[in-house]
């Protein structure tokens, strides 16, 4: 029997972006809140201080702040007939562990989704007809609109001091911004970041070809200082080039530490417990209500934390696994397409193009996680898909995040793989190229889902999440389309070499692609086709709310965090204004 802890009103599972936002937003309610985080306590000082934060081997290659797989991983297979095997080493994605979650080692690419992204099915059916959509694609509308989310996008951007240039201000299209974006209620809080040589040249070439490049929205601080609406301060980004995969030394990259956590931690009713790994949400026998959560502390002791309200903020697949392992909602079955939990696992469809210039230094080490110039002409439904035979799209981004020698030394195809020739190629080609990333969306497919693995377990004896995933044909066509466009622009830059790098098909767990894994506890307006409501409330266990990208019915062609944060803000507001008046009932 686990030891019982004193009862609290709210327990938050996971203290990354969504958990920290929830703790901040509930701070003025007077509710007693406990935040449980499986990883260690940390803060900018001392954990991300220079020079030790600029250690490529420790943080990026060995992955010291990523999830420790020796305790917990996922299993993976491409299709139902394969036996899933554990992801034994980190590869395709890099989940976070420790206070702040992946919000510590993210890039800060701070995107909104397009208005039409939220009506993925109805919009595409209306424009292209039902037949244009592959019947195996289980794409759905979100049940919220862009306009409903706009105030929350705006809020998170001001909390993070996001830099950028508005392209659509209350419906007026503005030069230099993204002309395709949904209307913004006001400008970005900070002006765009500086851009380095590669992205600047890319933008100039693209402009000459008739495109409308604009600076990528970035939560890397572009000003000397910034104070957010809560009075929390940020410092200037110094383009250190150790951004994504690292903690920021200068309070410049928005993370829970320099935004929402300081306010949450000031609340005397909030208690943070790190090194506390939640293994289960405990339900009443009828499975209609949660009693609290069981967790294991640093000493290996099992504890029961009773709570009236449970917020799952543990990151996408952890949320889904906790739901399945605890019996929250019906698990999805790909054979019948019935059940909701685990359904519509999607990813991001990425490809890279590298133009090389023998006599130019990019000075890519002077980079920032979200520095770059973007084109949005081929994202979402910003173009006519009629002749192309696929739906969806992605942005094309020329970026410079750093030139870290072990992992960011890109060499032209045909370079020797070792020996004197390799050394010569490294000397001649290091920092002579930059990345053009095609960042495509991901459509939901009937056979891509998450369930519990029948064989493999974590260090606490709980079954691992099993991911079954391969790229849908729709998305591979889209990827090729985006690569063709990227190559066209890159060629117009007249490079000495051009390299295209496509992640393997079938999808492989090995090469890093992105950590934008989404779905599995998707939101919607119908309990037969979604696991949570548009307020992220479990249809089946109404005192459980599930935050994070697990709620996305499919993925758009953008990075997810602004959208998942906006959904969290909206959910917490509804908890405060509606749920708490009638606890335990559906909002």
């Amino acid at each position, binding site marked *: 029997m686990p030891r019982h802890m004193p009862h609290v009103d709210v327990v938050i599972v996971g203290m990354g972006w969504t958990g920290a936002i929830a703790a901040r937003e509930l701070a003025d309610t007077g509710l007693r809140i406990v935040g449980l985080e499986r990883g260690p306590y940390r803060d900018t000082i001392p954990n991300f201080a*220079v020079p030790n934060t600029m250690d490529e081997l420790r943080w990026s290659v060995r992955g010291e702040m990523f999830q420790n797989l020796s305790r917990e991983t996922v299993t993976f297979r491409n299709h139902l007939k394969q036996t899933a095997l554990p992801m034994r080493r980190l590869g395709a994605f890099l989940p976070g562990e420790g206070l702040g979650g992946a919000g510590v080692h993210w890039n800060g690419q701070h995107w909104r989704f397009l208005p039409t992204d939220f009506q993925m099915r109805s919009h595409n059916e209306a424009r292209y007809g039902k037949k244009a959509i592959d019947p195996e694609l289980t794409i759905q509308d979100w049940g919220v609109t862009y306009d409903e989310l706009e105030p929350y996008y705006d809020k998170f951007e001001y909390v993070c001091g996001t830099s950028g240039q508005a392209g659509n201000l209350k419906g007026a299209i503005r030069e230099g911004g993204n002309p395709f974006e949904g209307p913004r209620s006001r400008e970005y809080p900070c002006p765009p970041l500086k851009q380095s040589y590669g992205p600047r040249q890319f933008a100039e070439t693209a402009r000459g070809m008739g495109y409308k490049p604009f600076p990528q929205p970035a939560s890397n601080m572009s000003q000397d200082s910034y104070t957010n609406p809560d009075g929390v301060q940020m410092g200037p980004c110094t*383009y250190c080039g150790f951004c994504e995969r690292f903690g920021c030394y200068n309070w410049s990259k928005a993370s829970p530490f320099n935004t929402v956590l300081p306010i949450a931690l000031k609340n005397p009713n909030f208690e943070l417990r790190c090194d506390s790994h939640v293994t289960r949400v405990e339900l009443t026998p009828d499975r209609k209500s949660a009693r609290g959560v069981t967790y294991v502390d640093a000493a290996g002791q099992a504890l029961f934390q009773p709570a009236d309200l449970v917020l799952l903020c543990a990151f996408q697949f952890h949320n889904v696994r906790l739901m399945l392992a605890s019996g929250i909602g019906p698990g999805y079955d790909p054979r019948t397409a019935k059940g909701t939990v685990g359904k519509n696992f999607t990813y991001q469809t990425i490809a890279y193009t590298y133009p090389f210039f023998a006599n130019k230094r990019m*000075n890519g080490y002077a980079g920032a996680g979200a520095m770059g110039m973007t084109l949005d002409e081929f994202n979402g439904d910003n173009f006519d898909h009629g002749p192309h035979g696929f739906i969806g799209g992605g942005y094309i981004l020329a970026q410079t995040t750093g030139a870290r020698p072990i992992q960011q030394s890109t060499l032209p195809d045909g370079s020797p793989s070792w020996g004197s020739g390799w050394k010569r190629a490294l000397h001649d080609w290091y920092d002579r190229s930059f990345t053009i990333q095609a960042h495509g969306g991901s459509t939901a497919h009937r056979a891509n889902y998450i369930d519990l693995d029948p064989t493999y377990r974590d260090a606490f004896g709980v079954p691992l999440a099993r991911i079954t995933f391969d790229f849908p044909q729709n998305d591979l066509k889209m990827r090729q389309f985006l690569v063709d466009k990227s190559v066209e622009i890159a060629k117009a830059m007249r490079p000495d070499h051009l390299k295209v790098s496509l992640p393997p098909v079938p999808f492989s767990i090995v090469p890093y692609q992105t950590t934008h894994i989404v779905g599995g506890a998707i939101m919607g307006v119908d309990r037969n086709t979604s696991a949570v409501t548009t307020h992220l409330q479990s249809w089946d266990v109404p005192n459980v709310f599930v935050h994070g990208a697990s709620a996305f019915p499919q993925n758009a062609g953008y990075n997810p965090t602004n959208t998942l944060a906006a959904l969290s803000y909206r959910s917490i507001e509804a908890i405060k204004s509606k749920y708490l008046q009638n606890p335990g009932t559906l909002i």
Partner: protein
Amino acid sequence: MTRDPDHPAGRASRRGFLIGGAASALALDAGTVEAQQATSVAPQRPDAVVPPGCPPQPGQVPTRGPQGYRFLTNPEVETLTAMADRLIPADDLGPGAVEAGVVTFIDRELGGQFGAAARWYMAGPWAEGAPSQGWQLALTPAQIYRIGFLALDRWCLGVNGKRFVDLGPADQDAVLTLLEQGKIDLDGVSSAAFFQLVWQNVVEGYLADPVYDGNRGMAGWRLLNFPGTNPALTEAVALNGEVYRIDPVSIGA
């Protein structure tokens, strides 16, 4: 940066310390390659000892940093040194992997968390799986080196009558190519996986921060003009294709 508390800035005393360090390493473990080189080269050519903050030149002996090995056996040191010397040779572009201390780097890594696969999921059952399912070997990196080096020497002795270390450079390159292509059976370990592991670690030791005992004198970073742990690079953003010259700094130089 000098980390010698007794002689914080003195160049002459620093050099004395370095030579003393090499000598004591010899006393501790006379069999290691680095120690042998230290005795044969350092006393006759005092300039061959690398001054602090400078990259070692081809033929120079990297003497700073702790000497001796924690994990690797003497034959393993010999094989790894020979391999590293072919994988990233010293040439007119500057020091190679051996001069940069890669053998010591790998020794430390294998004796630590990485060698023990401390952060990998290592519970069975084990199956080969599809390539898309990634790494599925039941061995830690330390075990792979141990098994791989032994099996490689056995293979070389069988085919050439010589250990890897005793082959000429061209023959060594030919063996490395076979390893890379997965064409040598290393006691059940795929030679391609073995090669990739060694190659990955050699590159790491050449380009990681010197705090891990490789990349001595920041030799790897100087080859690239990488600024190291300089965090304030704002002025480099404005350049238009010309190189940003700045002396690299590191955590551990």
